[in-house]
């Protein structure tokens, strides 16, 4: 004896902007493919009430110099040879199934020498040659140095439609100007607040920067280390966007690998409670679950550090898109 159930569909009035990263030869670049994210007309994966034209994507993080502060698990899985050579690293990352590569410029080399713009350009060129995937380039995270390096990189990578980050409210003009001049995209980054996020997007677009060349970084914490703050900011942001607020209807990017692998659960195994279980399995679970939970709150791009996590997250995305 069935009872008629009316499936409750929300009437979202606005779609997330579609953003394309990378450029093929036909488009003036040298990427073997481009990646487009966004365009959703509903909350993540609610196929019954809207369109999800583009799946979320996974970027694998590589760095321009040996990441001596990384977890031993990461050092082991990538291998010394690879970790000392960004080109090899990019190649291997592509081989793991990455949709994009995120190159993080550490700011100094193993000996402590400050990275020059020329060195940064060299690295980016090597990486662009070693992989056909679209590229994200992040500066060391210090305003002056970021600007110095990214301006040079923007020029050298003209035509490739790379993503550059991070733009913050204290420092965005130089990076945005460079991105405008050379046809790139930017990451707009604010600390866990819907209104601040909106504000920075407004400031960037006020410079006449096209809205469909912005990825929003809402700032998120790892599982157990603040994930729920980012998660809720993201749900609120995405809902506002779908309800019509154009300055919040942008694809979002989360630096999952970076946030997770700083944490004790993934970095160490000595002296930890037995209840934490196997080090590698819990680390992969930690990174994977942070990524998938944030994808559920609207992340369109997640950056990952462990190849096994890439596999799991991509499998998850596939299943969510295939409707099973």
């Amino acid at each position, binding site marked *: *004896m*069935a*009872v*008629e*159930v*009316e*499936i*409750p569909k929300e009437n979202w009035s606005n779609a997330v902007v579609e953003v394309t990263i990378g450029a093929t030869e036909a488009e003036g670049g040298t990427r073997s493919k481009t990646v487009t994210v966004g365009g959703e007309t509903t909350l993540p*994966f*609610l*196929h*019954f009430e809207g369109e999800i034209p583009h799946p979320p994507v996974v970027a694998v993080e590589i760095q321009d110099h040996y990441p001596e502060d990384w977890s031993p698990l990461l050092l082991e899985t990538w291998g010394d040879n690879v970790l000392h050579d960004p080109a090899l690293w990019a190649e291997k990352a592509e081989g793991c199934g990455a949709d994009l590569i995120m190159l993080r410029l550490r700011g100094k080399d193993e000996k402590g020498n400050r990275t020059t713009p020329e060195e940064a350009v060299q690295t980016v060129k090597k990486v662009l040659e070693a992989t056909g995937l679209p590229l994200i380039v992040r500066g060391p995270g210090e305003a002056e140095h970021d600007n110095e390096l990214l301006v040079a990189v923007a020029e050298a990578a003209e035509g490739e439609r790379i993503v550059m980050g991070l733009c913050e409210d204290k420092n965005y003009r130089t990076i945005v100007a460079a991105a405008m001049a050379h046809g790139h995209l930017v990451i707009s980054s604010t*600390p866990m607040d819907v209104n601040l996020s909106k504000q920075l997007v407004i400031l960037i677009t006020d410079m006449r920067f096209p809205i469909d060349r912005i990825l929003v970084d809402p700032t998120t914490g790892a*599982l*157990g*280390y*603040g*994930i*729920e*703050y980012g*998660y*809720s900011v993201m*749900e*609120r942001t995405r*809902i506002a966007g779908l309800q019509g607020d154009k300055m919040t209807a942008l694809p979002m990017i989360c630096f999952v690998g970076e946030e997770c692998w*700083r944490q*004790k*659960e993934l*970095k*160490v195994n000595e*002296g930890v*409670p*037995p*209840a*934490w*279980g*196997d*080090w590698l*399995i*819990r680390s*992969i*679970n*930690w990174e*994977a*679950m942070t990524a*998938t*939970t944030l994808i*559920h709150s609207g992340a369109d791009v997640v950056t990952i550090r462990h190849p*096994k996590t890439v596999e*799991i997250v991509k*499998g*998850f995305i596939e*299943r*969510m*898109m*295939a*409707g*099973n």
Partner: protein
Amino acid sequence: MPLSALEIYKLLPKTNCKECGFPTCLAFAMRVAAKQVELDACPYISEEAKEKLAAASRPPMRLVTVGVGDNKIEVGNETVLFRHDRTFVHEPGLMIRIKDTQPIKEIEETAAQVDGYYVERVGMKLCLNGVALENASGEVETYLKALKAVQANTDLPLILMAKDPKVMAAALENLGDENPLIYAATKDNWSEMVELAKEYKCPLAVYEADGLDELAGLVQQVEEAGVEEIVLDPGTRGFNDSLNVMTQIRRLALKRNFRLFGYPIITFPGEGTNSIEEETILAGQHIAKYGGFIVLEHFNPAQIYPLLTLRLNIFTDPRVPIQMEPGVYEFGEPTPESPLLTTTNFSLTYFSVAGEIEASGVPSWLLVCDSEGMSVLTAWAAGNFDAERIAKDVKRFGVADKISHRKIIIPGLVAVIMGELEEELGGDWKVLVGPKEAMEIPRYLKEVWE
């Protein structure tokens, strides 16, 4: 949804007798709607009317209790779809499935492991909630044996999983007043399962995988037969179907007041996935998106710990920034020569730092500053953890009286304030820059601090 004045009026005798103290039944109805007077101020109100009013003011989603005593699981009573709209209220139960076809020794071991498992986070003990015992054998004796083995090793709440009502009955006989969840009533066995649920006063799961119309129909039958505590199983076992269907069910309950779906949902993430990692992330999805009871196939700490953490995170009340009381905290009986560290009063920060100081084994003083509940970097950016604030709290809590030296260790992330803080503190105070990450504290205290 509460009844309107007009709806209440329809339930009244409409005689305008004035015995309630109001001139007309309509006037009385308006006061009842405004909650200014109780419905039973009317001496002629029918039982049916009372029921209708009570039903309409019930929460949109039932609270279901499984188990008894301190370990009982309470799930349901949610009022929002998104935690940011208010908060989620009841953490889903995380259970481990045991099959009666497993060797007895294994059953005993798993039950004991589930019972004893816990991890600590932010000063709280996180545990599993119980065992789901499945009658995979189809036999009564095997099931009872397995049940005995489980009960001998844990007092935690149980989910009894059996298709045959005879097996379920035998199991319930042995469980007495433990209040297990009966899984499940189906199209084929619902009337027998309903009788058992009523006899033993247990919550009853309702399984129907043929679509929401069919599920609603089965729930209605079970409700009409007199069962009140129901748990839904729409039979969705994958990532996509469970997300879409569970969202629909929750929306129907909360936004459309569809009472037949006003119940918690039970999920089995292991059934639709091909690896323990997949199961983990599907279970995580169910935690965030509307799962009430989540049954895992394995006991694996490396999987359970992240899931318990996610559950804690998602079900934290977003309106209450968890903060510690500012002040001086002592670790391991510090002396006036012991090191002094300082940090913010955001609870996650505090517990990270406190945990590491404890782990170092070095007796220490920790000045927890009032950063209005913000973490180190956030507080510093907001001006809530700068030289001025720290110096203020050093003074406020009489830190100088507790230590003989004048050295304070600040978090590495705010190294920039070193000079300023020394200035603010004055005298012969020296500011030492500690590590950036809490996990470096033990090494720092042992190697750098003499």
